[in-house]
């Protein structure tokens, strides 16, 4: 009996030792990934948190004095008598950012779905060509692509002069420097990020499922709403995130197409580090933006952690 127990102990010991050894090897092996995460994510974010809680230096940079004043500044201003007054100025920018980002994502979705469906129904060579054309704008600098819209929308721009030439309008108001112009630019910039994941999910869809639906007396419309859309949901959600999240932090469209009159969070933050020289305030705005994105992603992750069934029948 003792013999057996002894043997068991020995075995345990001999199992434990390589196990610990393996654990440390695993740690060493994964070290490059940890280091990348540490230096490229934890440290920069840490710096932003740190700066956001310091006092800003009017000559640029910050002073290492703890203060939450920059967070306070998002909601309140001091009046002449040093009383705190609620200030909607930045809240409006945050709301506009959320609104424009959602609108962009929704418009992109409405355009992308038919486009992706159309592409998925083409022959293989046409598919490859169309997908190539969709990714083609990525080869050109974002600045140039957004600036092209300035030329299209501006007074005497491509759009106005064409319409005037056709006699449809004479002397319309400027199409630039408002929310609509920014929306157009954002939809244009981010739509490929919506088309590609939706295309991938439609491609995975088994064509026999739509045949089965119409075989079971389903009209085209109910096949779309009851079969195709629910099965493409993973792609739609992925596309929505890929468009919505970068839209929250976008800088170019409000700068070029919003003309500085109408701001979004992206260029508001940028201004704090460049023109306004209020690093702490910029950092705290960045933290707020980060929290918004994280809340959105967490909400989405919770929603999609419920069982969803992917793709095709086996």
């Amino acid at each position: 009996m003792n013999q057996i127990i002894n043997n068991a102990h020995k075995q345990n010991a001999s199992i434990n030792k390589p196990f610990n050894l393996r654990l440390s090897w695993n740690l060493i092996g994964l070290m490059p990934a940890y280091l990348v995460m540490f230096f490229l994510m934890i440290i920069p974010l840490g710096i932003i948190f740190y700066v956001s809680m310091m006092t800003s230096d009017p000559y640029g940079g910050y002073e290492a004095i703890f203060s939450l004043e920059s967070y306070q500044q998002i909601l309140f201003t001091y009046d002449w008598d040093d009383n705190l007054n609620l200030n909607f100025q930045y809240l409006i920018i945050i709301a506009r950012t959320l609104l424009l980002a959602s609108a962009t994502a929704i418009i992109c979705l409405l355009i992308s779905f038919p486009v992706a469906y159309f592409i998925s129904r083409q022959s293989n060579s046409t598919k490859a060509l169309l997908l190539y054309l969709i990714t083609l704008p990525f080869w050109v600098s974002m600045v140039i692509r957004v600036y092209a819209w300035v030329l299209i929308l501006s007074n005497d721009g491509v759009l106005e002069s064409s319409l005037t030439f056709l006699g449809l309008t004479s002397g319309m108001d400027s199409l630039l420097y408002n929310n609509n112009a920014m929306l157009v630019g954002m939809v244009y910039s981010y739509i490929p990020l919506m088309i590609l994941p939706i295309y991938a999910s439609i491609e995975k869809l088994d064509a026999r499922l739509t045949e089965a639906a119409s075989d079971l007396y389903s009209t085209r419309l109910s096949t779309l709403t009851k079969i195709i859309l629910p099965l493409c949901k993973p792609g739609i959600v992925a596309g929505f995130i890929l468009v919505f999240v970068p839209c929250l932090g976008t800088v170019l469209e409000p700068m070029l197409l919003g003309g500085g009159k109408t701001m979004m969070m992206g260029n508001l933050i940028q201004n704090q580090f460049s023109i306004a020289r209020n690093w702490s305030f910029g950092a705290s705005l960045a933290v707020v933006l980060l929290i918004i994105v994280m809340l959105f992603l967490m909400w989405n992750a919770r929603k999609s952690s419920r069982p969803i069934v992917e793709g095709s029948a086996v």
Partner: protein
Amino acid sequence: MSIAIKINNISKSYGSYQALNNISLEIKDNEFFTLLGPSGCGKTTLLRMIAGFETPNAGVIQLHGDDIQSLAAHKRRVNTVFQNYALFPHMSLEQNIAFGLEMIGWGKDRIQARVDEMLNLVHMTQFAKRMPSALSGGQQQRIALARTLAPEPKVLLLDEPLSALDLKLRQAMRDELQQLQRNTGITFIFVTHDQEEALAMSDRICILANGDIQQLSTPAEIYENPANKFVADFIGETNFLNVDVINKGKDQPLKVKTPLGVDLELDPSTQAGFNALIENQSCHATLSLRPEKISINSDGLDINLEGRITQRTYMGGYTHYTVHTEQGQNLKVSKRNHISNNISYGINEMVKIGFLQSSVRVLTQ
């Protein structure tokens, strides 16, 4: 008996490839009708045309006397069981079965009652709330059947529904399908490339090849009296011998000279596969003789030969032999392994083989 589906001069081509070549056939009400053929013979194309997923280049398809050509798939009172079942993966089994009923606008209570009835019919009641991914192939198959039977279709189309199942399950599902067809009284049109499946289940079989109908008849008729060499070859095993037709004419026995060293005199009424139009000329033909029609070391047969066994394959219920005759022909012989008569022959053993003249079929080449 009334006609469920009438197909009239249907043709279909894809580019230069002729999938169906002027096909006409009638499928009766309450019939278990099988479209059988090798892959690429056009059987699935024909089925998809009846379902409404393909349009013929020419011809008419009628369902109970009404032309259904102009109707979209979702307006035809026919339902399809797909090869891989095509169950909706995001819906529970209940929802899958209810889908068609919702689409034709049944009320909630009526749908629930019908869904329960269908689940009961395919013995799947306890799985109602499961998702299709949680089912085995055979279970998915049953749900696909229940889903298509629920809206009470006039005709049920089955596109190789058993091909994805393993052998045991396939055999069990054959019986179940046949039972289901008898109980519901719905016309089944069954597409398969598996001749065994077709013989086992069908009332009538239509053999398609190269876009043409080769033969349309009952299983026994097709096996016993094949219309041509293709059918004889495709259905079951057979021995083919090249023969010379010596004389022939109406109401005269058909005389053929075989490479077995014997001449045969055959009753022309048993030779449906031989084209009597080529009259009074000697010509070449193919003789078909099924392996189980040849017996080893038996008495009382018309034709008796001698040969040496060159190959032996034990199959359990049967043993297959290859016999090399004195005249240099190889004949496949199949022998049932009886309880009482468990004789087995070894390789190189000399045996007598024999068959009846009435077992021989002469086929136009």
